[in-house]
């Protein structure tokens, strides 16, 4: 266990949010059990009021998740000198098998709480609250995920022992064990970039279609997940070379450092915003025809679609621009 201030802050934030989320899940169970829109009694009124509490909790949770996502990576980076062979956050996260799962769980929590808030927004617009059950079922899925994230985080830090020899971004490319990041870094740059361009452009077309017509949200959701994944893969395998201007450096995290203008925040932020809005639009599709939502969901979906389109377009433009103007030439 390493008692570094960043570690303490992360543990505190994670346990706090998970505690609160479990509390919210408890309320969720009450709501799933007792919810009855047709009733106007005190009990139903209290449940309605509790949904407002849960929305606040999830909104705060989303904020915290985004903040601690960044803090987690920075802390991993700050700890890297403790581990032989580690040069940045990648090395620290590789020290034990809980590093990356924590990161992925945080990411998943962020995306799901974002989608939850979208469902919430749609539901609040409708007087019959037809999405209440759906929302609280999602909440019950989010709670174990957040718990997993906390457990993984605690375990990760508990098991961090200084002096462990680890592999870092410099050596990832050499192959060796097939960790997630080494696989990503090991992808051949050009084809990966090509796959990304195709996916992203297809998603853009799909989002514009949804924006114009209000249809095709499911395809948009799939597309935005694909764009998110290929976007990260292409960033690590291809575009980052143009930021670092070093042929073998495939680090996903160094982009967050001041040396590179912390451009990573913007790039990852855009991808996350795109995937949340794209998936949010898709998640609403099933409920489009429910009474009370027919006039609420389509405009919301169209707004989400254009938001996703804008996010992905900015991302696409930024990385393409960098590849075009950088003095570095691959191959």
């Amino acid at each position, binding site marked *: 266990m390493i008692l570094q201030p960043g570690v303490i802050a992360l543990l505190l934030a994670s346990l706090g949010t998970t505690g609160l989320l479990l509390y919210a899940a408890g309320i969720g169970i009450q709501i799933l059990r007792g919810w009855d*829109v*047709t*009733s*106007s*009694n*005190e009990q139903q*009124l209290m449940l*309605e*009021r509790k949904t407002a509490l849960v929305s606040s909790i999830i909104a705060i949770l989303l904020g915290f998740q985004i903040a601690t996502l960044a803090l987690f990576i920075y802390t991993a980076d700050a700890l890297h000198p403790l581990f032989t062979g580690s040069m940045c956050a990648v090395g620290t996260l590789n020290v034990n098998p809980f590093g990356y799962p924590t990161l992925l769980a945080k990411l998943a929590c962020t995306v799901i709480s974002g989608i939850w808030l979208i469902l919430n927004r749609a539901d*609040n617009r409708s*007087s019959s*609250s037809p999405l209440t059950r759906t929302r609280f079922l999602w909440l019950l899925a989010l709670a174990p995920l957040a718990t997993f994230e906390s457990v993984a985080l605690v375990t990760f830090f508990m098991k961090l022992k200084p002096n462990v020899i680890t592999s870092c971004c410099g050596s990832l490319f050499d192959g060796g064990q097939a960790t997630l990041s080494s696989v990503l870094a090991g992808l051949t740059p050009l084809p990966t970039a090509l796959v990304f361009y195709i996916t992203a452009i297809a998603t853009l077309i799909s989002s514009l279609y949804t924006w114009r017509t209000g249809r095709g949200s499911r395809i948009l959701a799939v597309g935005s997940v694909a764009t998110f994944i290929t976007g990260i893969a292409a960033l690590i395998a291809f575009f980052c070379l143009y930021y670092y201007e070093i042929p073998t450096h495939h680090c996903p995290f160094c982009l967050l450092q001041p040396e590179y203008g912390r451009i990573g925040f913007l790039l990852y932020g855009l991808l996350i915003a795109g995937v949340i809005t794209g998936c949010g639009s898709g998640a609403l599709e099933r409920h489009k025809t429910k009474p*009370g939502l027919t*006039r609420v969901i389509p405009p919301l979906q169209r707004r989400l679609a254009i938001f996703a389109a804008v996010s992905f377009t900015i991302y696409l433009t930024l990385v393409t621009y960098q590849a075009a103007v950088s003095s570095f030439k691959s191959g």
Partner: protein
Amino acid sequence: MIELIDVTKTFNRGAANEYRAVRGITLELAAGESLIIKGPSGSGKTTLLSMIGCMNRPTSGRIRLTGETIAGLVDTDASGFVEVTSLPERFLTAIRRRMFGFVFQQFNLIRGITALENVMQPAYPVGIPRRQIQHDAAELLASLGVGHRQTALVEHLSGGEQQRVAIARALINKPSVLIADEPTAHLDTVLSREFMEIAAQLKKMGTTLIIASHDPLVYESDLADRTIVVRDGVLVTTDTEL
């Protein structure tokens, strides 16, 4: 524009201190009409007003509203009515904000802020630019004859002035219905008369009035299109001596 069908309100239902404050009231009110509700203390007037004004929901029965103010807010049925009985609270609030203005028995002004800010306060969550609200509020205060007291803290105002501020506040969101609960209870005869004059003016401008009172000055005035009597939560048609 307002319909109550067999409305009841039971407090603390199921508990030992269960109390049925309103028992099966049916009532209909047209736009522009003015209604005075009479009844002894504890008869359920305030409870009835708060249900009409969407402050809380009846235990059983139905309350239906219509009007252009609420048409865009909630889905209406074929006849243009909205059944508010089982609406979620956030919709009740939205309807209340657009459709009703309240003048409370105690004036319920926020102490420590000026008369003007008190009048502005209900408009804040609506999403109107602050300057516009300020302008409207100042105009309302001036039209009620307390324009010169705008910047005074409400606790420094006299009872009559406080009530005018309370009326201005009730009107800031341009409601179509003004609900007043015992508006003259804390006023002397002169001030009560002045209140009745203001009410008459509002009526002339087309505002629907619902006033609960057991002050003869109010229910014997010619303001009322209709007077009803409530006793023990029940509507009694015959107006016997209180």
